[in-house]
Structure formats: structure tokens, C-alpha cells
């Protein structure tokens, strides 16, 4: 019965749209630690941005607009049938595929800052933790999976699907680690981590699949409608494009 009660409580927790760790939930030492982990990655993102912007003046506006797109995507509720509710995708998978992981970290940092300030979604004190989970882990996971599968000969759709799926799941696994370590108090880490991970499952298992499908759909749509953009962002080569045509 106690297990049933746990399940009921955890299912009740799932509609929280809990993409980001809420403001104030992490104590100061953990908030500072995640901030210290996130900052070097964001700095590398800025360095990469400045390097790319030297050759192409439109790169900074593009990254700004991509940050706006990630903001909008991660504010859009989509239905999650198992939980009977709505949640939302990360959007960092597609950003990492298009502009690379480091610039994608910068994009998520900006999107998270705006969400924290004006939507109470995430927070300033948890900005570092959210950047690490959504930006660092999400972006690198999406980028590595996409590039890895493409190198192995997977189609754009398949590579996009798995990139989106694993971006989402990796983000939530990291969020669980951050939450469990931050709120455990005197409890042991592992049982709480498992509880939080289980709490995310009803929402994030299907949502990961949705994010995968969405990322695949977007990449395929770009390929059909504007393949020049994919060539410009080095997602596909000119050779691949002409070979297909």
C-alpha cells in the first residue's frame, strides 16, 4: 500500500510541467556548485559565437532568434496521454543540431534567463543547474547522437528522432540528479534519486518520444523546404544535397 501511495503521489507530481528546477528549491551551496559548473560552458559558447560571428555578421542575430525559438518551444504545452496532462519539450536538441553544442548551451542559457525572470519557470538561483541539465547535457547528447548516427549512415529523420529523444531523457535524468542531491537533506542520495526519476517517468517517457518525433519532423521539414539552411549550418554537405537531387 505504501508503494501504491508513492505511485499516486508521484503521478500527481507529474503534471507540474517540471522542465526546470524551480527558483529557491536548491540550497545555496548546491546552487553555487551548479552555477560554477555551468559558467565555463556558457563562456565557451560565447567564445564560439564571437568566432563564428567574425565570418558571418548574421550569426549573432540568428543565435538570438534561435534562443527565442527555444524559449517558445519550451513554453508550448503538448498533451501527454499517460499522465492525462500537458508538458513541454526542451528544444535544445534541434538547436544543438543546427548551431553546435557550445552555441546551443548559450542559447539555452539565454532562454532560461528570460523564463526565470518573466515566467517564474526555472529560476535565477537554479539557472546554473538548469543550464547544466538542459544546456550542457541536453545539447551535447543531442549533438553527439545526431552526428554519431549520421556518421553511421542513418537518415536525417532517424538521427533527428534519436537526438531529440535522448536529449529529453538525458535532461530529465540530470535534473533528477540535481534535485535529489539538492533536497535530500539527511536522506541517502540514491533512494531519493530513484523516487524523483520515477516521478518523471509518466510525463517524460512519452514526452521524450514526442520530442524525438518533433525534432525529426523539424529536420525533415527543413530538408524539404530549405535544404540551403542545413548546408549553411553544416548539418548536411553540398555533396549530399546534390546527390539526393
Amino acid at each position, binding site marked *: *500500500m505504501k508503494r501504491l501511495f508513492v505511485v499516486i503521489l508521484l503521478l500527481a507530481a507529474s503534471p507540474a510541467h517540471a522542465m526546470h528546477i524551480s527558483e529557491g528549491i536548491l540550497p545555496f551551496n548546491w546552487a553555487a556548485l551548479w552555477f560554477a559548473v555551468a559558467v565555463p560552458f556558457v563562456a565557451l559558447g560565447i567564445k564560439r559565437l564571437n568566432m563564428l560571428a567574425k565570418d558571418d555578421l548574421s550569426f549573432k542575430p540568428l543565435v538570438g532568434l534561435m534562443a527565442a525559438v527555444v524559449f517558445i518551444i519550451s513554453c508550448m504545452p503538448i498533451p501527454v496521454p499517460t499522465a492525462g496532462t500537458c508538458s513541454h519539450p526542451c528544444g535544445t536538441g534541434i538547436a544543438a543540431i543546427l548551431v553546435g553544442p557550445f552555441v546551443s548551451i548559450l542559447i539555452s542559457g539565454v532562454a532560461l534567463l528570460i523564463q526565470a525572470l518573466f515566467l517564474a519557470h526555472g529560476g535565477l538561483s537554479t539557472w546554473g543547474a538548469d543550464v547544466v541539465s538542459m544546456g550542457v547535457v541536453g545539447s551535447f547528447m543531442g549533438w553527439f547522437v545526431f552526428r554519431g548516427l549520421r556518421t553511421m549512415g542513418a537518415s536525417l529523420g532517424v538521427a533527428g528522432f534519436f537526438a531529440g529523444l535522448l536529449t529529453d531523457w538525458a535532461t530529465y535524468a540530470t535534473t533528477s540528479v540535481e534535485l535529489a542531491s539538492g533536497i535530500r537533506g539527511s536522506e541517502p542520495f540514491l533512494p531519493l534519486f530513484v523516487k524523483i526519476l520515477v516521478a518523471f517517468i509518466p510525463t517524460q517517457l512519452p514526452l521524450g518520444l514526442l520530442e524525438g518525433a518533433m525534432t525529426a519532423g523539424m529536420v525533415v521539414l527543413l530538408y524539404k523546404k530549405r535544404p540551403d539552411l542545413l548546408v549553411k549550418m553544416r548539418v548536411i554537405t553540398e555533396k549530399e544535397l546534390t546527390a539526393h537531387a
Partner: protein
Amino acid sequence: MHHFTRHPQNDDHPLTRLDARVKLLSALTLLVMVISCRGIAFPLLVAGVCGGICLSLGVRPRVLALRFAEPLFIAGMVLLLKLFFAGTVPLFSFTIAGWEVVGHRDGLMEGVRIASRIAGAVTVVAAVGFTTPFTDLMGALAWLRVPKGFIEVALFAWRYLFVLLDDAQVVYAAQKNRLGYAGYRRGLRSFGTLTGALVIKAFDNSQNITTAMVQRGYDGTMPLLKHRPFRLAEVVAALLVVACMGALWRI
């Protein structure tokens, strides 16, 4: 998204007119005090004061409720998790279908502590968000030596967020009117198309923006706000408030 506005709530409020740098520094200090506080009273006091500020700005209670709904829900869930799954000292118990569920006193205290921290921190940031225009906040961050690349991207994102949001709403309404979200599979396809269309619009807009900006002398860097000198009265008032809060925090 409907409680998300680009302008501060009340231009005539003294806090709206306060220098963004002073506001941001005071808010960050308060935030650090709240998240490092081991008690319950101080975060709740901060929540009360900052909630009162939000109401005095003329923010409608409905908007405030929407803004706070998610973090407060999470606070409630953390409280319940801690009550039933943490702690060792029984506070109460009840039986459901022959199974005993126990609430713990120390778990409840820990849960209330985290929940109060969330309430305090969320209201501090909300008060800043409701009283400060985004561009002023970015100016304050630039003054705090946040790298220019970050500020520039944030300013571009903020400027075109509302343009893309309007585009997204138009496409979403058109899709919905054509039953684009009737059924799970169809809804997913429509959502993919919508986000793909947004990415294409972002690319196209970035090209147009760059062309227009280059014609106006853009060379890759954007000029940021120039700050007026600090006003002594503002700084002294902020220091007094922070010192008072610091004293309460220590108690």
C-alpha cells in the same frame, strides 16, 4: 504564456523608477539570503514583502496566481514527499485499505523549509521582473561584467521573441481551425510543422535583420545602454533595506 508581458506593470511606482543596477544587486543579495536561510520565517517574510510589492504595482491577482502556480505546486509536492518519505519521528498516521501511511514531524519541517524557500525566492524574482524592463536588466547585467556576447544574444532574443510568438500563434490558430490538433498523431505532425516553420522564420528574419542593421552601421557589436550615475538616495535606501533584511536573516 498569456501572463507574459514586455512592459513593467506600473511606470509610476517608485520601484519601477529605481536604477536597475540597484534593484538587481539588492534582489540578488536577498535571493542569496533566502536560499542560504536555515529557518522558515525569513523566506516567508520576504515572500510577504515581495508579494505585497507585486500587488502594490497593480499586478492582477490572476496574473500573480498564474506566475506562481508552477513553483508553488512544486513546493507543495516537495512538502508532501518530505512529509511522507523523509524523517523518523511520527507525527500522524492513517490507514488506507489496511495499509498504514505515516507522516513525519522532521520530514514536515524539512518540507516546509524548502517550500518557504521556494516562495521567498520566486517572489523576489517576480518583483524584479514586474518592475524592470528587460533592456534595463540587460544593461545592469552588462554593468556587472556579464559578457557582451551573452547580452547581445539576449537582446536579439527578447526583441524578436514577440514577433515569433505572434507568428506561432497565427500558425497555431490556423492549424487548430483546420483540426490540426484533432487526434494525437495529427497534433504531433502539426506541432512539428509549427516548430519547423518557426526555425525557418528565425533564419529568414536573421538575414533580413542583419541586412537592415548593416545599412545602419552594424559591425558585429551592439551599443548597450549608457547608465546614469548612481543616485545617493537610491543606493542608501537599498543598502538600508538589505541591511535590515540581513539583520533579520541572521536572527
